[in-house]
């Protein structure tokens, strides 16, 4: 079996104008949604309390709300979670009542109303902790980006580092854009997925970059566009199969991972799909734009003599 049978190189670089336009549009849209709607930050980042409870019969959300109303707790969200018997209750961070007491208070009231209730999960994050987690997340993002640029710059050349990281930021912004547009909850695990995508998606660019370097050595006379087109075409089959395999696992996660892994898997799915696109059709045009030359990677003969000296 072989899926990909390319007679000749696909002229990816000549599509540069269109792909760049598409990228810019999606990028701007993502930024737009991020700035207008913002991320629906989970309790990890905002602070507050989340209770997950389970009933033996389908839960009556109205009854739960009225119990909470009698406690004079406002600004609560009560919704089904996974099945009709599971309920997720979100309580905002309250100043007047110690937050750990708050959850006990609510649980007692709910237990009085219905004895069959089972506590599945309590999460309370103090506002100061939420702020820290947000800061640490941003720091991690920065560290990963710088680390990858530095690695690619050392292993290839700075232009590759810059092209690689721009392509990947493009992916990250688009994932965030999706989360902003659909108002999916952005939790600590989703952040982990985003960072994993940052590392994973660079793989893709690296594979193509490796091939570009090899082609620069092998196809001595070919112009740069042809070198890049050939590199992308010849790694195409591997790109699709690899991403397909990873996506299969992620689909398994979407199907069997339950609510806890749902958004994690969703972020990975978007990341993988856009990763294919960005590493082939974003990274390489940027590389062209930055004016990559054969001399950047294939060192002239003189250099080797220098190295021979002690």
């Amino acid at each position, binding site marked *: *079996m*072989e899926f990909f*049978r*390319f007679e000749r190189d696909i002229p990816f670089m000549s599509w540069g104008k269109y792909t760049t336009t598409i990228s810019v549009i999606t990028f701007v849209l993502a930024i737009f949604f991020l700035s207008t709607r913002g991320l629906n930050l989970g309790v990890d980042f905002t602070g507050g309390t989340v209770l*997950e409870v389970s009933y033996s019969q389908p839960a009556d959300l109205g009854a739960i709300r009225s119990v909470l109303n009698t406690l004079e707790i406002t600004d609560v969200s009560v919704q089904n979670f996974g099945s009709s018997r599971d309920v997720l209750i979100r309580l905002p961070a309250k100043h007047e009542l*110690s*937050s*750990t007491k708050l959850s*006990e208070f609510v649980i007692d009231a709910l237990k009085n109303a219905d004895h069959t209730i*089972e*506590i*599945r*999960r*309590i*999460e*309370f*994050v*103090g506002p*100061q*902790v939420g702020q820290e987690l947000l800061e*640490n997340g941003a*720091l*991690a993002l920065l*560290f*990963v980006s710088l*680390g*990858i640029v530095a*690695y690619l710059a050392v*292993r290839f050349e700075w232009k590759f580092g810059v092209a690689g990281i721009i392509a990947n930021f493009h992916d990250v912004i688009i994932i965030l854009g999706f989360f902003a547009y659909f108002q999916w909850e952005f939790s*600590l*695990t989703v952040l*982990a997925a985003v*960072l*994993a995508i940052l*590392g*994973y998606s660079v*793989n893709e660019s690296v*594979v193509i970059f*490796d091939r570009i370097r090899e082609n620069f050595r092998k196809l001595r006379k070919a112009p740069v566009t042809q070198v890049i087109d*050939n590199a992308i075409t010849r*790694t195409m089959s*591997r790109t699709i*199969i*690899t991403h*397909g*395999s*990873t996506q*299969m*696992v*992620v*689909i*398994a*996660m979407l*199907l*069997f*991972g*339950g609510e*806890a*892994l749902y958004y*994690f898997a969703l972020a990975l799915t978007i990341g993988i799909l856009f990763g294919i696109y960005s590493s082939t059709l974003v990274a390489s045009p940027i590389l062209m734009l930055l004016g990559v030359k054969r001399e950047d990677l294939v060192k002239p003969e003189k250099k080797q003599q220098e190295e021979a000296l002690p």
Partner: protein
Amino acid sequence: MNRYPVWKNLIVVISLLIGLLYTLPNFFGESPAIQISPLRITAETGTTLLQKIEETLKKHGIDTNGAIVEGNSIKVRFTDTDIQIKARDILQSELGADYIVALNLIPNSPQWLTSIGALPMYLGLDLRGGVHFMLEVDMNGALSKSLDRYSADIRSNLRELRIPSAGLDRDNSQLVIKFRDEQSRSKAETELKKLYADLELRTQDTDRDFRLLATVKPDAHTRMQSAALQQNITTLRNRINELGVAEPIIQQAGSDRVIVQLPGVQDTAKAKDILGRTATLEIRMVDDESDLETALQGQVPFGAELFTERGGNPLLVKKQVLLTGDRITDAQPGFDSDNQPAVHVTLDSNGARIFKQLTRANVGKRMAILLVEKNHSEVITAPVIREEIGGGRVQISGRMSSTEARDVALLLRAGALAAPMEIIEERTVGPSLGADNISRGFNSTLFGFLAVALFIMLYYQAFGVISVLALSANLLLLISLLSILQATLTLPGMAAIALTLGMAIDANILINERIREELRSGVSPHIAINAGYERAFGTILDSNITTLIAGIALFAFGSGPVKGFAVVLCLGILTSVFSAVTISRAMVNLIYGNQRKLEKISIGAVWKPKTSKRS
């Protein structure tokens, strides 16, 4: 060329064997057990305790599945949780307050595996259920508490030294001592400098008075903070012991935070109650005049309470509290002048004064030191006062072993929290959700793996089978590595295992695609295999290092569940490079290496373009 030297094959075989060995314990599952550990060092341990437990259980007709001594504690295995809970209740009432009797799960793996350190993976709280707390110590509270103590001490020092002062105020983090003339101020300055090495003294003149400003020195401040944190941790540990948790984790996080993890605890309300409790010490007089016998029969005299001293003797103690524990600044175990074990207690100056009066008035009588916690008071010790004790240094001795002295010192020190604490993060996972999470993580990994395996085997045929075997080896090595390191496995960690499998296959795809490409350009199979592996290696390394960078960043900046994800991701990258490159190559070499004339290899259809390739 496609043959491995013996040592390389040996590495592959040995690593796989070790992998298999350390993955094994994960298959045996766990059985309900009870863990009995002594609460005090003086309590019996080892085989005597084991015998006692076995006899007790036999008397009540409870069957065990064997018991083991592990360090100080004893673990008893049962067939199901009903028996386990029944046995816990029986042992708790029979063994009394000297032992912690906790429910636990212990691995079913055979003894020989446990003895070589092969344990199942360590499951995080989101998989096994339990409570996670992060507490923050209110350092300002600790500072203000100590400033209050300093101001009381300085006031009485000045009085004793007969230095006239015009008042002492607290202004935020400094003490302001006012004097009417410069002479008394300079005298006070020299005296106080001698007494308090930890205070920084500065002079300030205003038009009305001469002032001395005292602040806590920065290094003393940090010392105080870490001491407060340490004392709080000790206190928490003592309290958690009461909860009966099998493997609690109590650790410092940063300069002012404590993380408490209680696996298997469901009653969070009780846990919070115990953690937030404030314990105090009280010194009261023992009522020796009243009749103990009538009191034991239920007629406790007015103004007194009946207690049981440690060691079991009943004791009548007066209700009037003479001194409380916040006057104690330190307690250390040591020896008295007869070389008998003793506890040296240091009181602050106010406490010292009270204690001096108290002992002078009560020579020959007994006093009782009580540890008072919510709904519960305990007489730690009830020594006889032999003489007036001044200077704030109290020695408690008599009928004490050195381990008991250490226990008492610890209790005196740890009875109260050094500074108030607040819960700033709580994550509780119920047992049913934990079990659900395990099956979710497991199913994601299983079905993800099956889908990838099926596809790769169809697509690359024999080489696909090799890739899938390498992927299985990767899984084996990863799980064994997690078991060996006892890294905490969380739900995101399980997701990372699944994700690693999805990403690890990339290396094999790179190799297989390279081999196909070489074949396409017309080289012989042997050369194609060799070139495929050689050329793909650089790419594999590059692409995995970038993911490793992301993993390391996640580990460094992540917390809790994300850290679990990062650990698995990083380990998965290491094992996948090894299995995809070295192990799969070993298999290829084994199959094809000995065939001198290799016409065709099974790597799926290699399609050749009609037009000749450029390169």
